[in-house]
C-alpha cells in the first residue's frame, strides 16, 4: 500500500468507526474502502478489524464471501459479461469468448497491459436488451460478438 492509499484508508475507516451502542457493519465498511481504493487489499484487514473492534477472521470472512468485493486492483477498465440465463440464451458465451480472444485475457484476470480486467457477472437487469456487457458503469445491450473490437475501442 502506498502512503496515499494508507492515508485514504485511515480516513475512510474513521468515518466507519461505530459509535456505541451501534454495532460495526463489516460489509458496509468494506464497500466504503472499495469505493475509495477500488478494491480491498487483504493487508488492510488488521487495521479494519482494529477500528471496528472485531476479530480479523470476521473481516476476512466477509471479504471472501461477497463476489463484488475485490481483493486485487482491477485494470483501468472493468469489463463484466453477463452470464445470466437471458444473456446465455442470447449467446453471451460467444461474446465472452470474443472478448477473451480480442484482449488475450481469460475471465477473472487482468490483461497484461493492465488496461482491462475481464469478469463474468450474474444478471444486470438488462435482460430485455441482452446480451449485456458492462464496462465500468456503462451498460451495453444487444452486444454481438462480431462487434467487440468497436465496442472496446473507446476504452483503449
Amino acid at each position: 500500500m502506498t502512503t496515499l492509499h494508507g492515508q485514504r484508508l485511515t480516513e475512510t475507516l474513521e468515518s466507519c468507526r461505530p459509535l456505541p451502542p451501534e454495532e460495526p457493519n463489516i460489509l458496509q465498511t468494506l464497500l466504503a474502502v472499495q469505493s475509495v481504493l477500488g478494491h480491498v487489499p487483504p493487508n488492510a484487514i488488521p487495521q479494519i478489524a482494529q477500528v471496528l473492534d472485531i476479530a480479523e477472521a470476521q473481516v476476512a470472512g466477509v471479504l471472501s464471501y461477497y463476489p463484488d468485493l475485490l481483493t486485487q486492483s482491477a485494470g483501468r477498465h472493468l469489463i463484466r459479461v453477463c452470464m445470466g440465463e437471458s444473456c446465455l440464451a442470447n449467446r453471451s458465451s460467444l461474446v465472452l469468448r470474443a472478448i477473451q480472444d480480442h484482449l488475450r485475457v481469460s475471465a477473472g484476470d487482468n490483461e497484461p497491459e493492465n488496461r482491462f480486467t475481464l469478469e463474468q457477472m450474474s444478471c444486470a437487469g438488462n435482460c430485455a436488451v441482452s446480451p449485456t456487457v458492462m464496462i465500468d458503469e456503462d451498460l451495453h445491450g444487444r452486444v454481438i460478438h462480431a462487434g467487440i473490437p468497436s465496442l472496446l475501442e473507446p476504452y483503449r
Partner: protein
Amino acid sequence: MKTARLHLSNDTSSLAAGAGRLADAWSDRPEIQLIRTSSRGAFFLEPMVERDMPGGREAWFNVMPEDLPRIVGGIGGTPVTEIPFLQQQTRCTFANFGITEPLAFDDYQRRGGLKGLAQAQSLSPESIVEELRISRLRGRGGAAFPVWKKWQVAQQTGSEQKYVVANADEGDAGTYCDRMIMEGDPFRLIEGMLICARTIGATRGYIYCRYEYPAAARAVKFAIQKALEAGLLDFDDYPFDLGVVVGAGSYVCGEETALLESLEGRRGVVLAKPPYPAESGLYGKPTVVSNVLTFATIPNILANSGAWHASLGTEGSRGTIALQLGGRVKQPGLVEVPFGLTLHDVLDRFGGGLATGSRFKAVQVGGPLGSLFPESQLDIPICYDAFADAGAILGHGGIVVYDHETDMVELARHFMAFTADESCGKCTPCRIGSVRGREILERIQSGQGTAEDLTLLSDLGATMKITSLCALGGRAPYPVETAIEHFGEEFRQGAHFMRPG
C-alpha cells in the same frame, strides 16, 4: 416554429438500447423539448421516442439520431394506444411507466400517487391488515406468502423498534421489474413502505439494493430526499428513517434471513426459521421483509380497495403479475396482466414468437431455480396453483426462452454450477450436493457418463429437495431434472451410454 415535446426513457435498459445516444445528439436542437421519462417496458421497440400530438402521444420505434426530422415533421408515428404489446396489458402497478418523469414528485401526485397513503392514514392498523386480507395479495418475491399475515404478525408483536425492509436484491436472472420500479416510479415503492411502516409501527426502513443496480440506488436515494422534504417521513409522533443499503453480489442474499444478516454487515448466510423475521428479524426486532414489487402494489390496493384487487386474476392468484420476457423471444419486455393467461398466450401474444432465425426449444419460468417447459406443456395457466401442481414456480415472473441451438447438458451444468457458486454453505445438501451435481454433469458432458450417473443425479436431487435449508438447494434440482425429463436423449449420448450391458 412551435417546439415539439418529445419523451424519451431514461431507464437503464433504454440507455443500453441507445437512448443516451439520441439525447446526446439532440441536446442543442431548438425545435424540440426532450423530457426524460421511465420506460413503457416494450424494450424491443427501444429506443422509442414519443411525441405529444393533438390526438395523444405518438411513438417512433428503434430510433436513430438521424430520424429527428421525421419525428419533428410528424411523419410515420404510431399512436401509443395502438401498440399491440401495450394495448393488451392491464397496467395497474406499472400505470405510470413511460408517462411520468420518475423523480418529479408532482407528476406522481397528479397521477394519483399518495392516495393510498392518505387512505391508510384514515384507517386503524387492524383495518389496513383487513383490507390486505380482502385483497388476497401474495408476496411477489418468489415465495408467494400472503402479505396480510406477515404484516399482522409484525403489527401484533410488541417492540419499541420495528423495521420495514424492501428486498431489492432481484437476483433471478431474467427479471428486471424491481429495477424498473426503483428507476422509473420510486415514489410508489416509498409509498408502499410508508403504509407498511404506519401499519406495524416501524421507525426505520431499509431498501437492500443489489450492487449491480447503481442507477436504481441513486434514483431511490433521490426520491427519499424529496419525500423527506415533502414531510412524508414525519409520522404523527416520530420521524421515519428510510435509507438505501447496497449489497455485494451474492444471490442467496435475496433470501430474507440471509438478507438481514447482510444488512447487519455479516456474511449473508441463511438462518433456520422460525423465528420468522416478522417476529424476530433485523437486530432481533420484528421486521417485514417484502419484495419491491409487493410494496409497489400496495398503494393501489389502499386507494382502490382490497375488493378491487381481489377482482383481478384467478382463485388462488389475485391481482396482476409482472412478467418479464427475455431470451430468444422476438419481443422482450415487461408484461403486466391479470393472472390466468396461459404460458403459450404470453409467448405468442406478447413475446411475438421467436427471435429471427430461432426455433423454440424450451422456456424457463421463475429464474435459475425455475422449471423448464417444452413446447407440449405451454398450455399451463400462469397462476400459483397450476405451477405448484406442476412442481414449478412463478418465482419473480422471469420468463426466458431458449432456442434450438441450446445445449441442454451445458445448460443443466450451468444451473448446478450456479448453485455451487452461490450456496451460502450453511447446509450440507446444498453446499456439497450442488458440487457433486455439477461434477456428474461435467462427466456426462465429457462423454464419460453412464446410466448410473442419471440415477445418481436423480437421488441427489431428491435429497437436496427434502433436506436443504432454503429454496436455493431445495429448488436447484428442478431445472436440471426438467431438462433431463424433456431432453433426455441429449444426456444419453455419451460413449458409455452406447455400450451394451
